[in-house]
C-alpha cells in the first residue's frame, strides 16, 4: 500500500509556537468579553452601592459617635450602651420567640398545604392562585387588613366575632402581651406562605410517581408515604427553606411596625430590627442602631455557618 505523504498545508490559524504577544491577547479577550463586563459592571455597581457600601458604612458607624456634625471614634461604647438598653434582652427574646413560632406555623403549614394541593385532581390551578393571592397583596395593605378588621379588640373584629359566635373567649389580640407574637405570626404566615407552597409543590411534582406506587404496593398509608417518600425526596428544599425562613423571620420588622404601632404593649412586639429602627429614627442614635445591626449580622452569620456545617455533614 502506497503511503502518501504531502507537505502540510498552510494553516489558516497561527501555530501555537507563534502566538501573538500577551498584550494583544488580553486586548482581544477584553473586546470579546466587553458585553459581559458591561453587564457585570451594572450588577457590581448596584451591589456596591446598595449592599456593600451601606454594610461597611454601618460597621464603621458602629464604632463612631456623631454630635454637632463632628464624628469621633469611640471603640465599643455603642455596643456596651446598646447591650445595656432595657429593651435589648426583650427584643432578642421576642425575635427568637417569633422565629420559633414562625418555624412551627409558617414552615409546617405551607408544606401541608402543598401536599394537599398536590393530591387534588381538579381545580389545581385555581387553588394555587387562591393560595398565592395574599403574596400579591402589598405587605402593608395585608397587615392593615389584619390590624383594623381581623385583630380589632372589640367584638366587631373579625376574629373576635367568630370566637364569640363559637362561644369562645375573645382576645385583645395586638393589645394583649401574650397574644401579640402569635397574632403577628398568623398574619405573617398568611401573607407569605403562597411562595413557599409553590416551591414545595414544584418539589413534590418532581418526585417520581413510581416511588409512591412502590410504597403503596408495600402497604404504606398516606402518612407513611409522606414520611418515607415525600419528606426524604424534598429534604434539600425543606432544608433550604428552613434556613431562608429563619434568616428572614429573625429580621421581623414590618409586622410590629404596622400591627403593633411599633413596640406594642410594653415592648411585647419589639423585635431586634424594630429596636434598630427605634434607635436610629426615633432616638436620634444612628450609631447605636448601627452597633445593634452589627450584632444582628454576627448572630445571623454564626447561625448560617453552623447551619451550613451541619447540613454539609449530613450530605
Amino acid at each position, binding site marked *: 500500500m502506497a503511503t502518501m505523504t504531502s507537505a502540510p498545508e498552510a494553516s489558516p490559524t497561527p501555530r501555537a509556537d507563534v502566538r501573538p504577544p500577551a498584550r494583544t491577547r488580553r486586548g482581544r479577550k477584553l473586546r470579546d468579553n466587553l458585553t459581559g463586563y458591561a453587564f457585570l459592571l*451594572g450588577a457590581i455597581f448596584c451591589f456596591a452601592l446598595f449592599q456593600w457600601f451601606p454594610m461597611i458604612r454601618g460597621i464603621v458607624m458602629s464604632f463612631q459617635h456623631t454630635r454637632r*456634625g463632628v464624628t469621633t471614634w469611640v471603640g465599643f461604647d455603642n455596643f456596651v450602651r446598646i447591650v445595656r438598653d432595657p429593651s435589648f434582652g426583650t427584643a432578642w427574646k421576642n425575635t427568637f420567640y417569633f422565629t420559633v413560632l414562625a418555624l412551627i406555623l409558617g414552615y409546617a403549614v405551607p408544606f401541608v398545604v402543598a401536599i394537599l394541593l398536590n393530591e387534588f385532581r381538579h381545580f389545581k390551578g385555581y387553588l394555587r392562585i387562591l393560595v398565592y393571592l395574599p403574596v400579591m397583596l402589598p405587605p402593608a395593605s395585608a397587615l392593615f387588613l389584619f390590624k383594623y378588621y381581623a385583630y*380589632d379588640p372589640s367584638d366587631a373584629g373579625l376574629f373576635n366575632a367568630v370566637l364569640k359566635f363559637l362561644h369562645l373567649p375573645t382576645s385583645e389580640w395586638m*393589645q394583649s402581651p401574650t397574644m401579640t407574637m402569635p397574632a403577628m405570626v398568623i398574619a405573617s404566615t398568611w401573607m407569605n406562605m403562597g411562595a413557599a407552597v409553590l416551591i414545595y409543590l414544584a418539589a413534590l411534582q418532581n418526585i417520581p410517581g413510581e416511588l409512591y406506587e412502590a410504597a403503596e404496593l408495600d402497604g404504606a398509608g398516606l402518612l407513611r408515604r409522606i414520611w418515607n417518600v415525600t419528606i426524604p425526596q424534598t429534604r434539600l428544599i425543606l432544608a433550604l427553606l428552613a434556613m431562608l425562613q429563619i434568616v428572614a423571620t429573625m429580621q421581623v420588622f414590618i409586622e410590629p411596625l404596622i400591627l403593633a*404601632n*411599633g*413596640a406594642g*404593649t410594653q415592648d411585647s412586639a419589639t423585635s431586634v430590627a424594630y429596636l434598630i429602627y427605634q434607635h436610629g429614627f426615633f432616638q436620634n442614635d444612628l450609631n447605636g442602631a448601627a452597633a445593634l445591626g452589627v450584632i444582628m449580622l454576627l448572630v445571623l452569620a454564626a447561625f448560617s455557618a453552623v447551619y451550613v456545617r451541619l447540613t454539609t455533614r449530613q450530605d
Partner: protein
Amino acid sequence: MSVSQYRRVAALTVAAGLGLSIAACSTKGSDDSGKDAGGKTVITVDCQPDGSQKDLLANWNADVAAFEKQHPTVTIKSVSVGQQCNNPPDFTARLTGGTMTDVFYGYMTDLQQVLDSGQAMDITQYATKDTIPTWDSVDPALKAVFTDNGKIYAIPTKNYSMGLLYNKTLFTKAGLDVNNPPKTWADVRAAAKKIAALGGGVAGYSDYSAGNTGGWHFTAELYSQGGTILSADNKSAAFDNAQGKQVLQNLKDMRYGDNSMGSRQLLQWADLLTNAAAGKVGMFIGAPDATTAIVQQFQGKYQDWAMAPMPGQDGAAKGTLGGGEGYFFRKDLTPDQVKAGLEWIAFEKLTPGKGQFDYARAKPQNQPVGLPQPLLFTAGSAAQKQELELRKANQNVPSENFGLFEATPVPIKGEPANAQAIYAVLDNAMSGVLTNPGANIDQLLKTAETKTNQLLAADK
C-alpha cells in the same frame, strides 16, 4: 445589527443609564449658585399640603403664585412630605440622608437633632426686619427656642399650649354641662364614665400610646401634676415619683376601672383624631389646632369642639405643655436663597392677613377661625393687634367654645431636651397602663427612667 452587537449596545446603555441615574440623584432644584437658567433664585420648601387637603393645597399654591409675583426674582419649589409634616422617622431619614428641602419644617424639639446632623445654617444675620417685617413682634421666647449659643437656626411659625378638648355634642347627649367642663382629673374620670355609657364604641376620654405621641401626652399630664421630665440640669430623668405614678394611675383607672377609654389602644396622632372627627371621642388633651386638624384632615366639624384649661389633680393644673414648629435652613444655601426663604416664611406664616393668617379666605372654606393660637406675636405688639382684629372680624368659631381656655391661663412649660427620644421611651409606660390590666406602674416608670438616663448619658 447582529445579536452580539445588540447585546453590546444594551450593555453599554445599561452602564450609561446607571451613570445618568446617579447624576440625577440630587434634591437640589438649582445649581450651587442657587439660581436657575433664567437667573432667578430658587428655593425648595416642604410641608406643602398634600392632595387630600384640597382647599389647603389650593391656598398654598395661590400663595406661592402671589409671592412669586411680589418677588419676581424668586422661584419657590414646593414639596409635600405627607399630612404630618414631621413624622419623626421620616424627618430623621431626610435629615440623615441630606434630602431635606432648602427650607425645611421641624418641631421646636428638633433643634438638637438638626444641629447634631450638622445640616443647619446659622441665620442670625439674615433674620431681621428687612426679611421678616414682623420680626420685632415675634415672641422672643419662641426665638430663644430655636437659638443655640446665641445663634438662630430656625424661624418659629406655630406655638401652642395644651388643654382639654371636649365634644359638646357628646357632652349634651351624656347630660353633662357644656359650659362647665371638667377642671380636675377626677372630673374628667366622672365625665368620661358618663360619655362612655352612651355606647356605640364611644370613648369618654382617649389618649395616645404609640409613635412618640404617648410620651408627649405623658409629659403634658405630668406637667399638670406639677412634675417635670428631667432634673434641673437635664442630666437625669425626674418622672419616677408620685406625680408620674398619678398620671399613669389616672389613665389606668379610666381604662380598666371604668372601661371609659374604649377598647382600641396603641393610638398615634392620626388614629385619635380620626376617632375624634368621627364623633367617637368625648375628651382628649390637645392644642387648639387639633380642632383645625380634625376639620381639615379628618373631615370633622369644628362646631362640635370646645376647649377647657388643662385639668389638675386636686384643683387647677400646675402646668401645661407648650410646643410648636418652625422652619430651618440648609447649611449650604447662598445668602440670596436664605433671604428668599425668610421672605417666603414671613409671607406665608408671619404676616397678618396672609398665608396662615388669611382668615378672610379660611372662613368661607369652613375652616375654624377664632382659635386662640398660634401665639406667635408678643402681647400688645403691632402684629398681634392686627392679627386679633382680623381674627375677630372673620371669627366663625363661637367665642365661648375656647373662652374658658383663654380666660384661665395655666403656666406653660416647654418640651424637655431630647424630647422625641424620651417620648419614644415613655410610649411604653403609656401603652402598659392602657393595654394591660395587670400593669405594674412602679415597674413601668422604673424601666422608662433607666432608658431615659441611658439616652441622656449617650448624648454627652
